[in-house]
């Protein structure tokens, strides 16, 4: 009897919560959509400092120049390595298509060989340049593949009100999502004022790892909310196994970028 009573109470609680949401604020999916479609400029150039820290706390540091330009729903990007000196001018270029059936194109330029190579890889759940970020972390996930629900609708995170949203892959798309992201589940802390993702927790299937994301040093650059520092910490059984920090500087949005920037010839020319 007691059990039944609790279940009834829970049901009432749940349904009232549910209806209450119907009247008040946005749904979880709307919050995520707003986050996903947040203004991020048509073009972006930054200098990025990438710090990779292994479990023995040894650091590796790389300097990268990023250039990105939107072509409608598609995106083109190019990366030049500035340092360490032995990889200077190594360049990586990618064309990402909104059309999921189209495989992304990427090219790599190795200055020591003076050769551009085309690269084909379906694996987006792999590490981005040896960091804790995956390509899907950097390029964004396909939010339509996920179901989102609120865990809490008002949590203070570093002084700001946030929505805490849980994302689970849609049942029928689970395999696809796993292949693309490697994630079983995500929880995101999204700021209410500007819909920025400021904190995240990602459950990685392979190796039972949990990754913790943090965006900090958040300010408006060219009138666009920008996190100048991103951290991703990978843990296993509660212990840090590896972490990565991306620090952005010389951030500029919406400057005019020539289409010729995204060509193999530009890769060969270097910076």
């Amino acid at each position: 009897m007691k059990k039944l009573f609790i279940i009834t109470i829970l049901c009432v609680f749940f349904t009232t919560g549910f209806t209450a949401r119907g009247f008040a604020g946005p749904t979880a999916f709307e919050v995520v959509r707003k986050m996903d479609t947040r203004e991020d400029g048509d073009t972006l150039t930054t200098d990025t400092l990438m710090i990779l820290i292994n479990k023995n706390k040894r650091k590796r540091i790389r300097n990268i120049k990023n250039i990105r330009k939107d072509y409608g729903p598609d995106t083109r990007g190019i990366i030049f390595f500035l340092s360490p000196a032995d990889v200077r001018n190594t360049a990586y270029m990618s064309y990402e298509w909104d059309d999921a059936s189209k495989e992304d194109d990427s090219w790599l330029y190795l200055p020591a060989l003076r050769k551009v190579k085309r690269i084909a890889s379906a694996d987006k759940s792999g590490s981005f340049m040896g960091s804790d970020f995956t390509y899907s972390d950097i390029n964004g996930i396909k939010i339509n593949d996920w179901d989102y629900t609120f865990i809490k609708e008002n949590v203070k995170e570093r002084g700001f009100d946030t929505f805490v949203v849980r994302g689970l892959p849609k049942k029928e798309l689970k395999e696809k999502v796993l292949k693309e992201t490697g994630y079983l589940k995500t929880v995101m802390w999204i700021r209410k004022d500007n819909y920025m993702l400021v904190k995240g927790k990602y459950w990685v299937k392979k190796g039972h790892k949990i990754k913790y994301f943090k965006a900090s040093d958040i300010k408006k650059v060219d009138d666009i909310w920008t996190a100048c520092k991103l951290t991703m910490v990978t843990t296993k059984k509660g212990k840090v196994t590896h972490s990565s920090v991306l620090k952005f500087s010389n951030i500029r949005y919406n400057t005019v970028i020539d289409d010729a920037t995204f060509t193999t010839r530009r890769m060969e020319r270097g910076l």
Partner: protein
Amino acid sequence: MKLDRFIIRAIVEFPNAILVFFVAFSIGAALLLPGLQRDPTPYLLPPSHESRVNLAKLRQNYTGANDSIIILLEAKKTVFNKRTLLRIKKMTAAFENIHLVTDKDREELLRLSRTAPVEVASKMHELAKGHIDSETWMRIDEIKEVLLSSPEGNQKILKALDTWMEKLSPVIKVTSLANTDNILGANGKLTVNPVFDEIPQTKEGLLQLEKQVQSNDLFKNILFSKGGKSTSIIIELGLGDDETQNRYLIYQQVKNIVENLVPGDEKEYIAGLPVVTGALGKVMEKDTQRLFPIVIFIVVASLFITFRQLKGVFVPLFVVLLSLIITLGLMVLFKIPLNIITTTLPVFILSIGVADGIHIFSEYRDNLASGYGRMESIEATLKHLTIPVIMTSLTTAVAFYAISMTRIIQLKHFGIFVSIGTIVAMLFSLFFIPALLVVLPEKNHKKTSNNRKEGSRFETAYADALVSMTKIFVNHPALTSFVAGIIFIVSIFGASKVLVDNNNAKYFLKDSTIYISTEKLNKDAAGSSVINLLIKTDSKEKEPFKNPENLKYVEELAAFVKTLPKVGKVLGLTELIKRINFVLNDEDPAFNRVPVHLDSGPGTKNLISQLLLLYENGGGDALSDFTDSDYRKLNIPVILQTNSSLDIYRLSHDVKEFAAKNFPDHLKVDLSGSASVSVAATDEIVSGQMISMIVSLGLVLIMLVFTFKRLSYATIAMVPLVMTISINFSIMGFFGIPLNIGTAIISSIVIGIGVDYSIHYLSRLKKNLDMGMDFSSALNNTVRRSGKAIVSNAFTVGLGFVALWFSILTPLIIMGWMITVTMLVSAVSTLALIPVLIIFVEKRANMKRKANEPRRLTLHPQQG
């Protein structure tokens, strides 16, 4: 003698008190027994040993350096067919979900869920009752998160959840065709894709897949071997060194998955160090349970044959069992767990301890038979035997104690507790048996003497045989010495052929699954054990191992290692760079190498950095397996088609020699890995046991000098021991039995037990001579009394170790054989050599005496 008088008085005056004391002590010890712990660690060396420290460092510095279970799948034609690939895919997923959660863990969680906060109670209940899958760990994290956000402690639940978390992820990584990326290069395009995503449905698709996999040198002998007929799946385990039990549990799960959950037509072979060590722990446990009744049976049988009387069986048996209980009780008291070697304690204590009991009991019966009353018989027995029993037990204890002079903790405990057991058995024999004989009714006296008559006819014949045998030796002292000398020289030659080798996989019987699987992997795949070549440089250069100059040396070493016997696979940074260089150049064979100088300056070093960046960028995650982040140290894992420490030692030697010859001064090679630890352990065992042998020989000599008060006698007593030891080693040399943890301790055992024969024999002979008997009657009496006892003892102890023949572990079987054989050799060499040597000594002494004062030749009647 003061001591025997003291014992006699104690026994006559307080027999009941003595019995009560010993029994109470035994009951006390028996009560402690449930607290006996097991320490099944497969590591013979302590964690502080250099090789273990290096192994721990290796695992700290590089990924992928943990012990792995390897499954070899062998198809009829090729593994690249739809059914096999599907099976591999399913198996891979199943292996990733291997866990160590037990019913006990479930019950604990269920119990805790009843008092848990409402918001997690049902989730905990579900967890405890539910099926464990690839997301269970995530659900635990969810519950933990809720608990951590609430102010109340719930420490107990959190702890239980952490235990679950730990037990859910014993597998670090599974590597198989189903989850590995292949890097291919063709037509100016690099492709980094899983080996297969969807299983190809057409013949052409499968053929292409097979071609792609076989084109990758890095996969050879691992993901494909025997031209695609077989493939391996590697499960890297993240278990602590002492988790033998868990290794076994995982092995069982792997077996269950392979045989029952994901069955198929392919033949499966499961091997690897975790399998061997895990199963070894289990098998040893089983073996003890198996051997215990066998040794009891043998002891009972030999007691029955000797005494043909219930009392004769049960009194000595009872005594050794109580001695065993007390020894084990003492282990509990000192918090010493049973380990893989001390599990053989029962066999040793029963076989060795029963000897004293036999001596006491048979002397008592002999006395009874010759017409003494009960009390007189007991008194006479103790008078005769107290000192020999004490001396023989002490020498045995000392020899076993010498075994403990090693860093191998298992041997240390073994040596200490066998010697304690020997002393305890001695005390029982001296106090408990006589006290029991005082108290027990002595009935069926007639029947006994009838039996005796029958028995004594046999015994007389047996003694006569021994006497005539001795006569042959004594009558031809020169020939006997000559033959013995020849045997000794041949033995030394044989002993020089003894090889030091330990092979864990060969601990198992030849028809056991583990033996067969290990051999199969050693034959048809990369192998079953791993040694790591660690290369470091003290060059001041930044990231020195991106410099092709340095990599050239590493590549040469790798190429050299590939040519060595028993090497199945060489991995490492240079192999990876070769592959990247190769695919980047459209798989042109000319580029299947570490890039050489492009131009002067840093060009090539940059190219290597860029190739590695390309690899990382393509999602490659093996760099941390092979190099530290500063490129100052490299790890070259070498997979070996052997588990023999001798093979591994030879390889290490060759590698070091190559490096010394070819490497520049700033490059250094070290060897590490579990294979290296096994070499170090074998070295430690053998050098330790050689030292123990020398020390125990020395100690025994001192004790003999003390006993006989004459150096010549003490030296003579040592001769049969040295002879037996060299024959023991020569048997090993001629039959190719390697010196390892089992065979290395045999010498100390020979000394410990064999010296007893010398003592018994010589002390009686000396006593007889001192009493003034002439040499031949003194010898005659000695052979009839002590000679007979020695042969019986050799049979009893030798038979006791026959129990080891029934072991399911090869080294124990070999040890059983060797001990049985050496006990008999020891008895024979005592009977043959001591009288001959005494003749030489006595002749000289006689000559001296003759010069001074002629010896009185009094004929004493033989003592009956």
